[in-house]
């Protein structure tokens, strides 16, 4: 019991990952298939990539004490813009990608400025920008549009061994963001602003910068997810983001990963665990051919039960910045 209470939420997330993996092996094995076959592992990892991109960005936004509900519409817009500009011309891949990312970053900038400058709650600000983009999409696109060239579609289709390229790109982004969070001034400021914005301001932090940066990175990640979906589908779709329910699912993955919804505490590594849990559960249910409506029931129950298990746990602590660096660098020693 004592040992259990010492575990941080990140540890518990990965215990749940392990538990899900064991349950998956048993259940899928009972159905006469193999959970650990190369094909199935590849399927699980493919399932992590889109939600993974969005959840990385959502983690930053939640850490600074905001929320991003506009991601599904940014995803749709990015997929439409890139597919529309590419129009099946391999030479247009770079302009298409650049335009999609630029527009996504622009939406993030607006979100960040409305939250930090006008002091509008992140929930309302991003619900508002999401609705604005949604109205634009509904007015200008009646269905799928554009086409992505074969060279671009390969990104969504190839893999190194069982690991898809899209998952590798997602993990590379996660690594970069993790470095930013733990090693740079901007990352430390994000934690400070999310923990207590008034204390952060009194400590001399420009509180606007981390908030705007988090929103811009979040929308960029949503843009990348949109590009990946355009590569997979071969076309851009105005409803792909809303269908996926990426806004609420990504927030659920972040909270499942042990990050506090009120901001200031949490870890990106935990978020990746949360995404992996979702991907494995989805895969198990697909292999076992469970009724698609019951999948949502299972998802809903898993989210609530998992968060309830460690709602009162301590959140993964960060290494102390000053003082005994060698002793407290890793989380286990800190919590011991």
């Amino acid at each position, binding site marked *: 019991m004592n040992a259990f209470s010492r575990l941080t939420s990140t540890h518990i997330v990965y215990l749940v990952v392990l538990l899900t993996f064991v349950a998956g092996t048993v259940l899928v094995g009972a159905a006469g298939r193999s959970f650990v076959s190369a094909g199935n592992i590849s399927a699980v990892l493919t399932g992590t990539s889109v939600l993974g991109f969005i959840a990385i960005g959502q983690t930053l936004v939640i850490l600074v004490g905001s929320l991003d509900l506009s991601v599904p519409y940014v995803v749709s817009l990015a997929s439409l813009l890139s597919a529309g500009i590419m129009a099946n011309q391999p030479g247009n891949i770079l302009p298409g990608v650049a335009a999609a990312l630029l527009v996504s970053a622009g939406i993030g900038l607006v979100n960040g400025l409305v939250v930090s400058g006008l002091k*509008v709650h992140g929930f309302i600000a991003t*619900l508002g920008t*999401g609705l604005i983009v949604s109205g634009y999409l509904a007015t200008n696109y009646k269905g799928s549009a554009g086409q992505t060239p074969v060279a671009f579609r390969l990104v969504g289709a190839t893999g190194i061994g069982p690991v898809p390229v899209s998952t590798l790109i997602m993990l590379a982004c996660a690594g970069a963001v993790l470095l930013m969070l733990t090693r740079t001034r901007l990352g430390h400021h994000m934690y400070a602003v999310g923990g207590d914005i008034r204390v952060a301001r009194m400590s001399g932090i420009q509180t606007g910068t981390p908030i705007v940066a988090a929103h811009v990175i979040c929308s960029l990640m949503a843009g990348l997810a949109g590009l990946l979906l355009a590569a997979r589908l071969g076309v851009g779709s105005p409803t792909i983001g809303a269908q996926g329910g990426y806004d609420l699912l990504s927030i659920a993955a972040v909270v499942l990963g042990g990050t506090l919804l009120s901001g200031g505490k949490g870890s990106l590594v935990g978020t990746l665990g949360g995404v992996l849990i979702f991907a494995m559960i989805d895969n198990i249910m697909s292999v076992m051919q469970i009724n698609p409506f019951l999948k949502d029931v299972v998802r809903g129950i898993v*989210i609530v039960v998992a968060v309830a298990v460690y709602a009162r746990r301590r959140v993964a602590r960060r290494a102390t910045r000053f003082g005994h660096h060698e002793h407290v660098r890793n989380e286990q020693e800190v919590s011991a």
Partner: protein
Amino acid sequence: MSAAVTDRSAVLQQNRAPWHERALRALRTPGGAVFVLLVVLLLAAIAVNPSFGEPGSLIRFVGRTAPIAIAAIGQYFVIVSGEFDLSMGSVVTAQVFVAGNLIGQDDSRTVPVLVLMLVLGALVGLVNGLVTTLLKVPSFIVTLGTMLALLGLVLYWTGGAATGNPADSFRQIGRGGVQDVPVLEVLPYPVVLVTVIAAAAFWLMRRPYGRTLIAVGDNPRAAALTGARVWWVRTRAFMLSSLAATVAGIILVGYAGVHPSVGRGYEFTAITAVVLGGVVLGGGRGWVLSAAAGAFALETLFALLNFLGVQSTWRDTVQGVIIILAVAAGTQTWRRRRRGRTAPAQAPKHVIAAQPAPGSDQEGT
């Protein structure tokens, strides 16, 4: 200390002011401004389309808006206590399906199923509330979970296709009305329902429960220290919210019939209406009737856009711009008032210090 005393005497002076002065001051708060917005939008809509201003057409508009206004009133209880209820849309859809499948063409089943639906609504709220307060799961996650689970269960139960057409006696609640009313011709039942519910909510917020609810939203720890049972106060707010969603569902069966898209996005529309009414996310501030007025303002805006011939697909965009602007204006007002209040509080400090009688500040001198 002295700042608090001046503050209190200033408040007392304000409260002793004549009612029209107080009403004018209230209109300058975010919760009052929504009524001004509503009147402006109504006048604009009538100017564009004069037939909208006829009593019969106006009252039908109020009836159409009633479900959203009722949902906004329910969502208000949860938001003012510092939580979210995202399960509202799923509750509406679930109730519509329950009515469609259980009542059928049998008039005698109307009342038992109605009772069942209300019990079901209260139960969903109870689960939301207990998991939030006792298991300490953030309400955003709990209600997201119930949203997914409830909708999934109902769709699984009905096989995804909406079936059934409830008996006319049931659909009359949403469709029918009191006949032969002077001036209006027909007084729709939804208008009666929304009036009764708004009056009951107004009364409830003046009762000890309402006062405690706002205190809990403002500062749960302080409320707990004064002896409020925070968990039970919040759980009842969730139950009121789900019950409101149930009533909205009952009305929508009459209006829109049984369809899986009925109720979709209701949670966000209700939250938008509440926020438009000047209620602060995070709890502790706002008036329940402003939340209902926010719902009417939103629907009047859509009606106005409709009259102006704006494509219906732009509705979302306009809604997005409006809520950002309204909340930005609201937060600027709260900040300005805070700044304005601290400035004079400093000035008469010495005057107060000259009256050292202890305890006299209790009377506000």
